[in-house]
């Protein structure tokens, strides 16, 4: 262990900013972070051991206790559930003889759930030792179980288990034609750097992560900061459930993304660029490194790029399972090797970003578009779209449709058009922008995707009428409670209260007061949370309750109060001790008249048959005493 850690620390030039990267490698090699490693790193990097522990305990992919030599994580995205995830994880648990959330006694295998892995168009999906598994089914699991039992190393596993497809179904302005390597830089230098910024301004390009800040304005603010160092950061921490377009862009258009970053570097005066790649996309890492190396060899990265005097290079950092790192200031903290906790703002990253220096953080798609604009000019982009939303948007479409995948649309397109193109029928509603976005009902399909109406980072999840909308809201609410960083009170406590409250209602323990309590809680979490995670965490409940309040109400008992736990179930131990099971040893929960059996919910997502499932966290199993 000692030698290994000495080696990777040396490779990272003993920089504490590389702590997360170092811990990832230790986890990969030993399947946990041994205490000896913490002590050694504390000395080598000259940081307190508490900093190392707090990083290890923050990221879902790092563990202080040993996991299996084969670490299985199965994606808990609603789209995976729609594809039968619950039955599959049960089957996998049975085949591997390991419980969900557990390590098998011999230490060979561990199994757990994980947040959306970004394979919603080819799920049910998962990860083994960080590498993406797609299209899991019984036969794939049989194969996997055999490979595990033979203890075959991952590189000897059949490639089809790891095959990740682009699934591009509709190309527009950006996806139709990839720019030639170097074309954006040549155009930018030929036109002039300032003139290129003017073109980007003219294009009307706004940030593609969802918030929609004007790109040219961000770049200008950053360039005006009088500091020796500036940084360009590409946010590839695509964690919003239902989003996977950045994965496709980095798989097939990475050169153009890197070129966009380099144009940005020329404009703001940066010498260092960083890509923050979500840990779930480990499978892309080596490929991206090869592309970077090729760009260096072609004089498009490194010193004196294209003989213009521009020095710039790009480094890739991997995340480790934390949705919050998609928030730009949390992402910067993570790049610095710390837990991803959003900073207080102001100051903003454009003035005080990475290492406290002026930093531009943009989405993968934003850099892709900027490179194309540098070649084709601002009007090329601004000529299409709507008044406030120029150009196109690349969407990740998944859920109940015939052709889930990547679609590029001109801004202003209606939801109905999208549904027609991807083959969706019998639609109950559409989750636009992922769990943090908006749920719209089938009465609103004429609405348009644009910053003026439905703003989105690109996640479109289609939900048909066989699904239960409360189960969807419940899945999303669990997601936010799991991903809350815990910094501020309203989000740390509030998202867990929301989770317990919606569970109570879904499990049939809700009474009339519980909807009011839920609404109040939503308002508190939304209005008082520190960052976008908390401010949007109640959206799944708020937006579904606005549209289908009757579904919530149907779940309630017709009484004003209902205990939050199972009264009869709580007597079970006493019954066993007293060796009694007569009528007098049982308690009725309440005199219930209006409740709907919970089984309807539990089975509607997966098409029934939930019995052999060992999963405990989703959907919450009904309490005992039936």
């Amino acid at each position, binding site marked *: 262990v000692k030698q290994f850690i000495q080696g990777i620390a040396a490779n990272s030039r003993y920089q504490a900013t590389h702590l997360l990267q170092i811990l990832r490698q230790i986890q990969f090699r030993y399947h946990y972070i041994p*205490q000896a490693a913490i002590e050694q790193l504390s000395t080598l990097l000259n940081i307190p051991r508490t900093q190392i522990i707090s990083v290890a*305990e*923050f990221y879902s992919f790092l563990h202080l206790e040993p996991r299996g030599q084969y670490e299985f994580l199965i994606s808990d995205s609603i789209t995976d559930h729609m594809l039968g995830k619950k039955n599959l994880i049960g089957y996998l648990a049975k085949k591997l003889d390991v419980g969900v959330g557990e390590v098998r006694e011999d230490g060979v295998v561990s199994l757990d759930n994980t947040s959306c892995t970004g394979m919603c168009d080819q799920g049910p999906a998962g990860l083994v030792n960080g590498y993406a598994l797609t299209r899991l089914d019984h036969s794939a699991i049989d194969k996997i179980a055999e490979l595990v039992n033979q203890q075959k190393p991952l590189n000897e596993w059949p490639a089809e288990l790891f095959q990740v497809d682009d699934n591009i179904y509709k190309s527009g302005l950006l996806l139709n034609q990839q720019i030639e390597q170097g074309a954006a830089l040549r155009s930018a230098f030929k036109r002039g750097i300032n003139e290129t910024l003017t073109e980007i301004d003219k294009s009307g390009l706004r940030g593609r992560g969802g918030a929609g800040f004007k790109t040219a304005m961000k770049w200008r603010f950053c360039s005006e900061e009088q500091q020796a160092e500036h940084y360009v950061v590409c946010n590839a921490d695509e964690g919003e459930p239902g989003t996977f377009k950045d994965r496709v862009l980095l798989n097939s258009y990475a050169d153009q993304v890197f070129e966009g970053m380099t144009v940005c570097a020329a404009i703001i005066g940066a010498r260092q660029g960083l890509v923050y790649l979500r840990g779930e996309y480990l499978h892309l890492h080596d490929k991206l490194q090869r592309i970077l190396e090729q760009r260096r060899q072609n004089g498009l990265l490194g010193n004196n790029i294209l003989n213009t005097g521009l020095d710039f290079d790009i480094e890739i950092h991997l995340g480790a399972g934390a949705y919050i790192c998609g928030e730009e200031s949390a992402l910067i903290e993570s790049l610095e090797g710390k837990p991803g906790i959003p900073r*207080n703002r102001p100051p903003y990253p454009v003035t005080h970003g990475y290492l406290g220096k002026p930093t531009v953080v943009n989405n993968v798609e934003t850099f892709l578009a900027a490179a194309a604009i540098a070649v084709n000019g601002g009007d090329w982009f601004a000529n299409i779209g709507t008044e406030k939303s120029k150009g196109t948007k690349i969407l990740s479409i998944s859920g109940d449709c015939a052709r889930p995948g990547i679609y590029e649309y001109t801004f202003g397109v209606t939801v109905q058009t999208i549904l027609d193109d991807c083959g969706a029928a019998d639609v109950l509603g559409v989750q636009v922008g992922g769990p943090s976005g908006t749920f719209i009902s089938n009465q609103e399909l004429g609405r348009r995707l644009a910053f003026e109406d439905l703003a989105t980072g690109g996640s479109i999840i289609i939900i048909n009428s066989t699904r239960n909308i409360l189960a969807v809201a419940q899945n999303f609410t669990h997601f936010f409670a799991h991903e809350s960083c815990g910094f*501020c*009170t309203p989000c740390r*406590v509030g998202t*867990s209260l929301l989770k317990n409250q919606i569970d109570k209602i879904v499990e049939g323990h809700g009474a009339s007061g519980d909807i009011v309590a839920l609404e109040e809680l939503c308002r*508190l979490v939304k209005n*008082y949370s520190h960052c976008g995670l908390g401010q949007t965490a109640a959206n799944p409940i708020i937006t579904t309750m606005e549209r289908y309040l009757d579904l919530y109400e149907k779940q309630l008992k017709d009484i004003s109060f209902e205990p939050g736990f199972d009264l009869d179930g709580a007597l079970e131990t006493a019954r066993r001790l007293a060796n009694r099971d007569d009528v007098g040893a049982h308690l009725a929960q309440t005199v219930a008249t209006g409740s709907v059996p919970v089984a309807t919910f539990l089975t509607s997502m997966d098409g029934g048959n939930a019995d052999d499932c060992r999963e405990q966290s989703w959907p919450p199993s009904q309490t005992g005493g039936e």
Partner: protein
Amino acid sequence: MNMSKTITFDGKVIPFEDGQTIMDAAMAADIYIPHLCHQPEFTPHGSCKLCTVKVNGRNCSACTFPAMEGQEVLSETKELINDRRRITQMLFVEGNHLCPGCEKSGNCQLQAVGYHLNMLDSHFPHFYPDRKVDASHPDVMIDQSRCILCTLCVRASQQEDGKSVFAVSGRGINKHLIFNAQSGLLKDTDLETADRAAHICPTGAIIIKRTGYRVPIGQRVYDHKEIDQVSLETETEHLKHGEEI
């Protein structure tokens, strides 16, 4: 000193200086905004969210948000008071706060803020978390059941004691304090009883052993004064006399 810049705070015009937060300006003007994670001597943290005020219609943490010319700040509105009570209740249900049996009772800021906001019940269902007690240190005890994750001990240890005894670890509802020792035990850290960090806890999470009942219940700080008065008397010293701004 340039005192020409002002903000409007609950209808009252108060001065501020560049670099001051809304909290700084309010304190200097003898105005109390409820807070638990803030102590003017240490870098503001902005996590408890009790000091949330409306600045030009937008919710901001007063302890971290810079005062700027022309801001219209609302603090003692019915809505904000009610919601601060709810946030305090969240802190209560998150941990295990049993005031009648806690030796910090009467000196506890969490309890005092609860009184100040007229909190009469816990409102939310309790979590009853299973949290650790560390009584290994000869003079200091930590009961994480009462920790509200304000990080004042973390900051005091770093910024005043020149150590890093404490850190907050974990994520979401599982966040907790950890101690800088290979054993993970407080006794093996370099914490000393005289350290500021050992005395800064606003609740009863960090207590000095064998001192808990020297002042009888009924004669303690908040038994006689409201927290707004205590805060303005003790915490503003630093602002008024400390640094020359």
